[in-house]
């Protein structure tokens, strides 16, 4: 049990460090790299929870596809360096306020209602196997699944509409 805890807290430190690095980096590409590290540690958390499918999907989709997209956008705009003069006055107080709300909520959830967590029944050992996920996804969660596919289609249409050159004007 202690080995698990050491692993967990080590990873948590890496995740928080990566998140801070992402926020504080002056260079957008470094921020993206820190975010990749953060996603990778989150994937390991999923593994520790016994959910390998979600962990691997996390790496493939978030750390892989989405971050490549981010990197391309950063490079596309040539926007690696943040302008130091750029400061928006109203964002910072709101951000601090929202962070405080989130922090209070989390503390309340963990310490105030933490008792609920211990009462959850232990799950079956194969609850996260790909077979089980497939069966659940295509029986109980069939409708959300199909809605997801439509959502992805809409996203694709959105992409294409956004990048389309306005032919009428030129």
């Amino acid at each position, binding site marked *: 049990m202690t080995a698990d805890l050491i692993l967990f807290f080590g990873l948590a430190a890496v995740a928080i460090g990566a998140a801070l690095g992402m926020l504080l980096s002056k260079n957008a590409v470094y921020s993206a790299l820190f975010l990749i590290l953060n996603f990778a540690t989150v994937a390991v958390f999923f593994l*520790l929870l*016994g959910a390998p499918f979600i962990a691997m*999907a996390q790496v493939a989709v978030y750390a892989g*596809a989405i971050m490549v997209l981010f990197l391309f956008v950063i490079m596309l705009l040539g926007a690696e360096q943040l302008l130091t003069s750029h400061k928006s006055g109203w964002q910072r107080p709101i951000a601090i306020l929202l962070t405080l709300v989130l922090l209070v909520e989390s503390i309340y959830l963990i310490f105030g209602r933490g008792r609920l967590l211990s009462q959850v029944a232990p799950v079956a050992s194969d609850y996260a196997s790909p077979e089980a996920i497939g069966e659940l996804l295509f*029986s109980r969660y069939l409708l959300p699944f199909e809605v997801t596919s439509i959502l992805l289609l809409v996203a*694709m249409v959105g992409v294409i509409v956004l*990048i389309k050159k306005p032919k009428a004007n030129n």
Partner: protein
Amino acid sequence: MLDQWLFVGIFVSIAAVFPLLPLVMARFLAPRKPNRIKQETYECGIETVGDTWVQFKIQYYVYALVFLIFDIETVFLYPWAVSFDVLPLFAVFEGVLFILILAAGLFYAWRKGALEWS
């Protein structure tokens, strides 16, 4: 199952340290006499003009975005393929429908010219 992942973890750690060895070895063995001309961009070629990090074609971004969408769809197909045998016919049909929606998306992107390298 977690054991198996622990071994993947061990292997990943060893693999992460491994490429450092040649770099460290080269640090001790290789000569290091840098000078200004050697360190120029594209040394021994024509001098570069202007900034490297310029805006480039939007097409790369489009490919990355369409890739992201298809990648998610592919990941969703895997559990379907695994439990193909045990699923009822209806669910199998739903998976096929999913593939068709995927194909429709590709067809749309194609028709709208998003895949053209203009």
